[in-house]
């Protein structure tokens, strides 16, 4: 009886290891796919790792708990119904069950572990992992990302209005505005939300190519200031702005900051 228990236990463990390997490949593929989309949408990569780890753990647990010898019998028809009968009657002790156990142990020697590996599927997954990995590296190198839609959307909505304004009143009409629009412009554009903005410098994307650097060139510099530099009053200081507009200019930034 111990022999059949050991044999079935070994078989079960082998199948579980193969199952875990297959799930690991799936988890890696899911992780890389999520990293791909995270890079495009500027989302933290940690979420991708968490999702793929959760997937691996949960899916593996489900597959292991649903383990059934029927899966092995499907691959090896000569064990059909016999393997499950042996496994379900391991604690019975009569000569019929002993004969069955001996028969199963003999037939288990014909079980080839490689038959449980779907090589075609594994190759496809490896290929997909390679493709997605290269895509992720390319995105990271080029710094490509999808635009922030919540900022682009109002501009898209205003496009027809701008087009109509351009056709109707020209530039002055756009500047004058209509209705209750303030002379200082649309308040929402100037309003910055009290949100901390994190600016990440993309270290991969750089215009500096270390391979092309060289020593600084030796140059002669003239002493003193250049001859063509001279101070002169700016034209804007002598500009004659009408009195009614001076207040607008003076209070422009105050109005914006309100």
């Amino acid at each position, binding site marked *: 009886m111990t022999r059949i228990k050991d044999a079935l236990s070994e078989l079960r463990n082998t199948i579980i290891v193969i199952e875990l390997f297959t799930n690991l490949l799936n988890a890696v593929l899911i992780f890389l796919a999520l990293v791909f989309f995270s890079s495009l949408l500027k989302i933290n990569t940690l979420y991708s790792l968490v999702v793929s780890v959760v997937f691996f753990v949960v899916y593996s647990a489900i597959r292991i708990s649903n383990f059934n010898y*029927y899966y092995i019998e499907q691959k090896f028809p000569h064990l059909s*119904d016999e393997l*499950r009968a042996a496994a*379900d*009657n391991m604690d*019975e002790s009569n*000569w019929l069950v002993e004969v069955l156990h001996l*028969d199963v142990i003999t037939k288990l020697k014909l079980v080839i572990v490689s038959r449980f590996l779907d090589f075609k599927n594994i190759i496809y997954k490896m290929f997909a992992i390679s493709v997605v990995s290269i895509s992720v590296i390319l995105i990271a190198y080029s710094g490509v990302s999808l635009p922030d839609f919540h900022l682009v959307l109002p501009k898209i909505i205003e496009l027809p209005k701008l087009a109509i304004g351009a056709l109707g009143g020209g530039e002055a009409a756009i500047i004058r505005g209509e209705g209750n629009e303030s002379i200082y412009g649309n308040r929402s554009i100037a309003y910055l939300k009290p949100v901390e903005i994190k600016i990440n410098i993309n270290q991969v994307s750089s215009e500096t190519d270390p391979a092309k650097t060289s020593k600084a060139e030796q140059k002669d510099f003239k002493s003193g200031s250049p001859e063509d530099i001279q101070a002169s009053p700016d034209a804007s200081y002598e500009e004659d702005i009408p009195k009614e507009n001076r207040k607008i200019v003076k209070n422009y930034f105050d109005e914006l900051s309100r």
Partner: protein
Amino acid sequence: MRSVAEVKKKVDYLLSEVEKVVVGQQEMIKQVIIALLTNSNVLVEGYPGLAKTMTVKTIGSLMDLKFSRIQGTPDLMPSDITGTYIIEDRSGKREFKFQPGPLFANIVLMDEINRATPKTQSALLEAMQEKQVTVGNSTFKLDEPFFVLATQNPIEQEGTYPLPEAQQDRFLFKVKISYPTNEEEYNIVERFTTGSTIPHLRPVIRKEELVDLQDLVRKVPISNDLKKEVIRIINNTRNKKDLIEYGASPRASIGLVLAAKARALIEGRSFVNKDDIEKMAYPILRHRIILSFEAEKNNMTTDDVIKLVLK
């Protein structure tokens, strides 16, 4: 017997010995043997002259079992089959002595059970179920093994008392036998018209061996998945309301598992497989389901419906 091959060899030899007397009807003979191994009873439906009596009588002699035959008639009383007390005069003293009836045998053939009155049918069915007979205040245990093969004629239904479904449920199998093929009928004619005698048969399996085999059948391993499959099949008979008016009872589940185990053993296997379940489902369910009007309207037979239930 300590190997499955030995059991198979014994059963094959038994079948070959039966073949010396009975031509054809292989399936009926196999099912009778399976019923014997499961310590159950069989209801055979077939036209007269199809070797039902001869089969049972031959199996009885090959297994060294006491055989008795009861002809079902409308005037058959329960005491005619169970036995009765008679007054015996012993050395001047009169006393009641129990005279056992034909039920006190190992194999009982009840011909045309549907011709016997319900009261007599009940007496037989009590013996089948309880393996005992009650006469007056006394109960008499029947000898082990005890097997009843009851027959029914599908024609000539006038003046009969059809077995109610609840009583039919006590039979493990309902076997339908048909006419022999042309080749088989030729052999029958050749054998029984040329003056050759029926060979003398010697017992192949002793009574004690049969009891051991009956114990062994219950020990044949079956997987839990197949037991669930059996329950699924029986449940299907209760759920298919469009085709089946009344489905099978849990007795059918027990019978199907036991019959599958017996079949596995006589086929030389130490485990039950799906094929055993599917093959045994037909004789197990045939008499346990009642077809709906819809099924009968579409000219479906019980076997057709069982085929759908097995899917």
